[in-house]
């Protein structure tokens, strides 16, 4: 199945600052999904990107799909304590519908 690498593994952010987490693949992706999992919780779907160069925004979150469809990014502005959690990118395989998750970026926020 398709594999994606997420960087960084950990992100420690001062409240109010911005940060970006990245998801990279060596192969062209048909789509990419982003999920957030709070500590002790379950993954929650955030967004799906399917088009080359696509950019979608959800309040302070900006998601981007690379032009070559080999990478994606999640940018969060003015980080809040509610942003704490692990952010996963995931790729949906078009042949067996397997959703392959990256290892995630775990975000902690300093007040």
């Amino acid at each position, binding site marked *: *199945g398709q594999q994606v690498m997420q960087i960084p593994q950990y992100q420690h952010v001062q409240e109010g600052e911005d940060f970006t987490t990245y998801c990279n693949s060596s192969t062209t992706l048909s*789509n990419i*999904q982003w*999920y957030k999992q709070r500590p002790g*919780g*379950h*993954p*929650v*779907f955030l*967004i*799906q990107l399917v088009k080359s160069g696509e950019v979608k925004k959800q309040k302070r979150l900006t998601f981007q799909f690379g032009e070559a469809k080999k990478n994606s990014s999640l940018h969060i502005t003015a980080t809040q304590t509610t942003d704490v959690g692990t952010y*996963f990118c*995931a790729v*949906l*395989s078009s042949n*067996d*519908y*397997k*959703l*392959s*998750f*990256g*290892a*995630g970026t775990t975000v902690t926020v300093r007040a």
Partner: protein
Amino acid sequence: DAGVTQSPTHLIKTRGQHVTLRCSPISGHKSVSWYQQVLGQGPQFIFQYYEKEERGRGNFPDRFSARQFPNYSSELNVNALLLGDSALYLCASSWDLNYGYTFGSGTRLTVV
């Protein structure tokens, strides 16, 4: 509307036993998938079902099996439990195969 519901929430089993985990998808969702999540890692795909047929299978041994019922609910069965099967088992449902998934709260399985 109720979300994806899973039962039981927690379970303790002994090595060698078998376990059945249950999942009810969101009403109208025809696609159900199962994942195993070990602490500190991303969910690992186990099975995908759509319209009661298996559409995908991950790299798990044959001790793992699943099925989807006519009402779209699903069961995950694991036989001959090993200590390494201890994990959070997540069920997710979606309208179709190419949409984002809604996850349940999971079943925490501990094998002793």
